[in-house]
């Protein structure tokens, strides 16, 4: 029954959540679990947005604060603060968001590319923008979120090199 629907309209199901008043979405297929906020164990020598690790049934899973990751001010963690556990390849990690809102079906046609905002807004963790019932949902690219910092720095450096070449 479910499969019939899927076949009729190949939509992408997104779990949407609230972060600093904006609505974001993450592919539901990569979501493993949603849990309330609980204290994590800090890890030394990590970027500030990696809050620490938690015990997920015996697995040691890192947790990052999405606000800090996006360069927003840190919110104090309250009752509605949730940790969404997502999986990329075999690896798990948790993202702290303000609140989980909904599961929505989004047609691939409704997904638009992220406009180039220059260096002011960090858009590299977004896969695209989608409109759903008059609301805009920003779709997260979880794979990029999870990449270690140095890979990103390297990428950025390479992009810089390419830009220079184009300019020259």
């Amino acid at each position, binding site marked *: 029954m479910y499969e019939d629907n899927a076949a009729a309209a190949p939509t992408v199901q997104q779990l949407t959540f609230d972060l600093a008043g904006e609505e974001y979405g993450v592919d539901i297929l990569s979501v493993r679990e949603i849990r309330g906020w609980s204290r994590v*164990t*800090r*890890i*030394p020598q*990590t970027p500030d947005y990696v809050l620490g690790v938690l015990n997920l049934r*015996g*697995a*040691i899973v890192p947790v990052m604060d999405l606000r800090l990751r996006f360069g927003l001010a840190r919110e104090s963690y309250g009752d509605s603060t949730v940790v969404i556990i997502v999986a990329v390849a075999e*690896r798990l990690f948790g993202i702290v968001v303000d609140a989980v809102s909904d599961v929505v079906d989004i047609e691939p046609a409704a997904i638009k590319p992220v406009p180039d905002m220059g260096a002011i807004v960090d858009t590299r963790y977004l896969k695209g923008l989608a409109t759903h019932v008059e609301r805009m949902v920003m779709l997260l690219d979880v794979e990029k979120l999870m990449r270690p910092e140095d890979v990103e720095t390297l990428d950025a450096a390479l992009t810089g090199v390419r830009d220079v070449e184009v300019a020259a």
Partner: protein
Amino acid sequence: MGAVDLTQFHKTFFEESLEGLDAMETALLALDSGSTDHELVHTIFRAAHSIKGGAATFGFADVAAFTHVAESLLEEVRSERRAVDGALIDLLLRSVDCLRAMLARSSSGQPAADAGSETLRGELLRLVSGEAAAAPGAAAPQAAAVDGWDIRFVALPHLLQTGNDPLRLFRELEQLGRLEVRRAFVLDSAPARLAELDPSQCHLGWELRLHGAIARGDVDAVFDWLDGDCELAIEALSGQARAAAAQPAPAAAPPAVAPASATAPAAPPAREATASATASAEASSIRVGIDKVDALINMMGELVITQSMLSDIGEHFDFTKLERLREGLAQLERNTRELQESVMRIRMLPIGSVFNRFPRLVRDLERKLGKQVRLELHGEHTELDKTVLEKIGDPLVHLVRNAIDHGLETPEKRRAAGKPDAGTLTLDAHHEGGNIIVRISDDGAGLNRAAIVGKAVERGLVQPGQQLSDEEVAELIFAPGFSTAAQATDLSGRGVGMDVVRRNVRDLGGSVGVKSEAGKGSVFTIALPLTLAIIDGLVTAVGEERYIVPLTSIVESLRLGAEAVRRIAGGGEVFQFRGDYLPLMRLHRAFACAGAITEVERGIVVVIEDDGRRVGLLVDDLLGQQQAVIKSLEKHYQRVQGVSGATILSDGSVALIVDVGGVVRLGQRSKAA
């Protein structure tokens, strides 16, 4: 369901083949040492045969072709048409090595055959065909070529149940030459009505004709495992020209063609070689004795009983049941501990699998160095963790080589010293407390004190004229870059010294030491932990965090007065401990923890040691000792400097395990700065 994907069985094939090769090697060495047990020859033959069969089934034609020739040679030995001598055993041992290499290449997707294997195959081939040509009267009818064989093969009903499949046999026969099925028939034993047919029973018979000049042994080999599962009659095809008898070599013709056809399919997978190689390195399997599994199931049963008892108490709880609850919890604890032990035992393998490679190594070294060695192995059944076992092999090989190369003397020197010609090398493994002790002892010359001290002076490790105790001299051989071999042989002196052995053993959480007596020999002792997955740790508090310090690396814990800490140039801090100045590392600063005690006199300093270097760690408090199950941080995150892993505390929270080596290096750097 589509066709069966055979690649899923490749890993098993490789594992079983390697085991088969080990068995072959062991049996060959036993034959070499003069045993005349006929069963040994059978063991070797069977191993070769199953490797050939497997290789042919899974499409590793090169391996099959090579093994086929080796098997033909073994068949001659088995049927006592060829005597076993040193040269033959040498050749067969080299074939075992070659097959190992071929299997390794196959498993990483490369073509199995290379120049070396082809040369060796040629050598085997010459021996087989040469013998056949020169075979005297009695053996001639068997070994001589015929035009083919008539085979009447009637399956007994239970044939399929033994895991045999006529189709596979026919395919194997087809590899030898053109196979013609002259007649297939249903036996009288078959039920008259189809409804009564039991598909697990076989009621068929065949009359086959195999064309080509094929040795009888090769045909026999195909039916080797059907003893008692079929009725078999094999007759040479008669009435044909016997002229071909002069040329028995075509027996090897099919395999000679095989490599050519095999290279083509083998080539494309080469691209994936690296990927599949890493995958196979990670996902290795383990063989577990059924008794261990049974014990586990029993324990699981007890745990379930305890659980249901506890939930029963919980359902209707009142204070009269407090005592029963306590009992139940105690039982639960016992069950859990037993279960933990049993589960850990699954990963435990006997050290014999490592010891088994030494007879071969010792034999090769004996020849190379002109020494005589009697190897004694004790405690092969001592079990240790698979990971430890895999990593202890190389250090042990190194120690055994050293013992034979440096320790044991030549027969002449031994005679002069009043010792028997053959030196004795003993490998012994046993449990001692929570550790496995592996001892490598020889009755050779012992450590050469003068040479070691001379070398150490030359290297600037000690001052000339410095007085050294025997222990200190022995310690010197573990210094980096230290080697006393007068000339670099290809065995030792390759820059891989005892320091590497020590480091490898340390990486496993163990230690290695040596005791030596001039003229009487040396004893190297390696102590290893039973497992890498669990450590005894000291739980320390730093601010809100808990850190586990491995107990084995703790020297002492002490309280220091504020005045005991001195600041040195560059901002580092040191304190005096047993006459030495040690760097003080404030763990809260290194790990950036909030809310920790910053005054030295209110905290506790834990002195830890790694590789002879010591550092004091300042923590808030010691919370107690705990067995910590090590969990990887890398699995879902990444490596973190100064942290070797994480564990889960009794309250379910995560505590990080301090990487003593990393922290000590950090501390040393701050002292140097």
